[in-house]
C-alpha cells in the first residue's frame, strides 16, 4: 500500500444557493480543489452524495459531473452512505491511490437540498433511517437523536445546557469561517429558547438544510513531496457499520460504529486519542457531538456533555472539536460534509485556518456518520515533518 496525501482542497460558500444548480456548484468547487492541487486532470472521481435522486431528481451524477468538469471519459461514480457519503468517498479515493490503481483522484461531496420543499427534504433525509420500522411510526431524524439525547441525559446527567453549549462552541468557531452558512455566535439561552423540534432538541440543536460542495485531491505521498505545500498524509482510515435501527442497538447512547471506525483508524495510523491535535466530527445534532467524542475516546464515556461545559473541546481547549463550526454552523449539505471535514483538517494542519487556527497541529481526525449512527467513517491525517 502506498502512502496517500491530500494535495488540494476546495470549498465554496455554503447556504441556500438559489442561483446555482447541482452541477454548477460542483464544478465551481472542484475547480478550486484542482487549482489548489495544481493539477488539471485526474485519473478518476468519487462523488459523495446522499440523495440527488430525491433532492433534485437526478441520479447517475458521477457521469454528469465528470462531463461538466471537463474530465472526459474518466471513471466517475457516486458513493452513498447517507450523511457519511462524503467520508466514504474519501475512503474510496484513498484506497484507489493507496492500491496504485490511480495516481490522482478527485474526491468531492455535494448536496443540493433546497430545490425541494421542506416536506420533501424531510422525506429524503428520513430515507436514511429504517423506513419500515422507524419512519413508519413518524420518527424523524431530529427525533432519533432526541431519543439518544434523553437517554444520555437520564443515564449520565447530561444537561439541556450542555447540549446547547455544543451549538454555542461550534457557532463561535463557525463565526470565523467565511464559508459557513451561519457564521454567527449564539448563546445558551438562544439555543434553549429556540423553536422545539423534537424534545429535548430545539432548532438550534440541529444542523440546517444546506446547499454546498467540497472537494479534495488525493495523490501518492511521494508526489505530494514534490510540491511546495506541507505534505498532509492520510495515515488512518476506518469504516464500520452497526444495527440499522436505533432501537436494536445494545446501548442507545453508545455509537458502536463510531467506536469501531475510530479504533480501525487509530490502529492503521498507530495513533491514540491523546495523539490528536484536533477533530472534525459529525455534529448533525448537539447530542451527536457529545456521543461521538465519547466513542472516539477523546473524552470518557458519559462525560461528553461535561467536557463541552469545561471547555475541553473548545478552540483553545485540550482537544479542539469542530474548528470549522461543524455541521451546526458551517451547514450540512449531507454528502458534502465528510469531504469538508477533511478540508478543514488539512487547512488546520497546513496552518491555513486563519482566525480559527489551532496552534501548530500535527495530527487531526475526521468522523463522518450516516443515519442515526449505523455507518461511520473516520480518517486520521498527519503533517509530515
Amino acid at each position: 500500500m502506498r502512502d496517500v496525501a491530500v494535495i488540494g482542497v476546495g470549498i465554496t460558500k455554503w447556504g441556500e444557493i438559489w442561483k446555482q444548480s447541482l452541477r454548477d456548484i460542483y464544478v465551481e468547487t472542484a475547480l478550486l480543489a484542482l487549482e489548489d492541487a495544481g493539477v488539471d486532470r485526474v485519473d478518476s472521481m468519487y462523488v459523495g452524495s446522499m440523495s440527488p435522486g430525491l433532492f433534485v431528481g437526478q441520479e447517475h451524477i458521477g457521469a454528469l459531473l465528470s462531463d461538466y468538469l471537463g474530465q472526459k471519459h474518466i471513471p466517475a461514480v457516486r458513493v452513498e452512505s447517507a450523511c457519511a457519503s462524503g467520508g466514504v468517498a474519501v475512503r474510496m479515493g484513498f484506497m484507489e491511490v493507496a492500491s496504485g490503481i490511480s495516481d490522482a483522484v478527485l474526491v468531492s461531496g455535494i448536496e443540493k437540498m433546497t430545490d425541494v420543499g421542506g416536506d420533501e427534504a424531510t422525506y429524503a433525509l428520513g430515507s436514511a433511517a429504517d423506513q419500515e420500522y422507524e419512519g413508519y411510526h413518524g420518527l424523524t431524524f431530529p427525533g432519533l437523536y432526541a431519543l439518544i439525547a434523553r437517554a444520555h441525559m437520564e443515564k449520565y446527567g447530561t444537561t439541556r445546557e450542555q447540549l446547547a453549549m455544543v451549538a454555542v462552541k461550534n457557532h463561535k468557531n463557525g463565526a470565523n469561517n467565511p464559508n459557513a452558512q451561519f457564521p454567527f455566535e449564539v448563546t445558551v439561552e438562544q439555543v434553549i429558547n429556540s423553536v422545539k423540534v423534537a424534545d429535548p432538541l430545539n432548532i438550534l440543536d440541529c444542523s440546517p438544510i444546506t446547499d454546498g460542495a467540497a472537494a479534495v485531491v488525493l495523490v501518492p505521498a511521494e508526489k505530494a513531496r514534490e510540491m511546495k505545500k506541507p505534505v498532509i498524509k492520510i495515515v488512518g482510515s476506518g469504516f464500520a457499520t452497526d444495527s440499522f435501527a436505533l432501537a436494536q442497538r445494545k446501548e442507545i447512547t453508545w455509537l458502536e460504529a463510531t467506536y469501531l471506525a475510530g479504533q480501525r483508524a487509530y490502529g492503521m495510523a498507530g495513533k491514540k486519542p491523546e495523539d490528536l491535535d484536533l477533530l472534525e466530527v459529525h455534529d448533525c445534532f448537539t447530542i451527536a457531538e457529545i456521543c461521538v467524542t465519547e466513542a472516539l475516546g477523546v473524552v470518557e464515556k458519559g462525560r461528553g456533555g461535561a467536557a463541552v461545559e469545561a471547555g475541553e473541546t473548545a478552540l483553545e481547549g485540550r482537544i479542539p472539536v469542530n474548528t470549522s463550526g461543524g455541521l451546526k454552523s458551517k451547514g450540512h449539505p449531507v454528502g458534502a460534509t465528510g469531504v469538508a471535514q477533511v478540508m478543514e483538517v488539512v487547512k488546520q494542519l497546513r496552518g491555513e485556518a486563519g482566525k480559527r487556527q489551532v496552534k501548530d497541529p500535527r495530527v487531526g481526525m475526521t468522523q463522518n456518520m450516516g443515519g442515526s449512527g449505523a455507518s461511520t467513517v473516520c480518517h486520521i491525517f498527519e503533517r509530515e515533518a
Partner: protein
Amino acid sequence: MSTPSRYWREIPQRYRKEANRCAPCDLIYFPPRLICPECGNRALEKTVLAEKGSLMTYTIIRVPPSQFKDQAPYAVGIVEMDDGVKLTGQVVDCEFDKMHTGMRLQMEFRKMYDVGHSGIICYGYKFVPEY
C-alpha cells in the same frame, strides 16, 4: 409513503407482531430476519412479540413528516418489550408531562397515516399506558 404492495408485505408484523427467534442465542428478531447476526443461525423459528413493555426513551415530534401532520405533536419512544425486544413506536393516550422512562405500556391497534385522500389507510401498533 407506503404503496399497497409494500404495506401489505408488512401486515404480519404490523397487525400481529410476528417475529422470529434464534433459539441458541435466545434472541427475538423483529422484524423477522433470515439469519441471526449474532451466530449465523438460519433456522430461526416463528414467534409473536409480547404485548407489554417499558418505555426506555422518548421524544415529542413537533416537526413531523407530511403524512403525520394531523397527529403532531406526538410522542415516539423506544420500548423494551417484556420479551426483551426493543421497538420504536408512538406513545399515545398519555399527556406529555405524564410520560416518563420506565413507564409501563401496552400495544394498541391504531391508524398510522392515510396515503393522501385516495390512497390506502396504513394501520399498525402504537403504545398506550398499561391498563
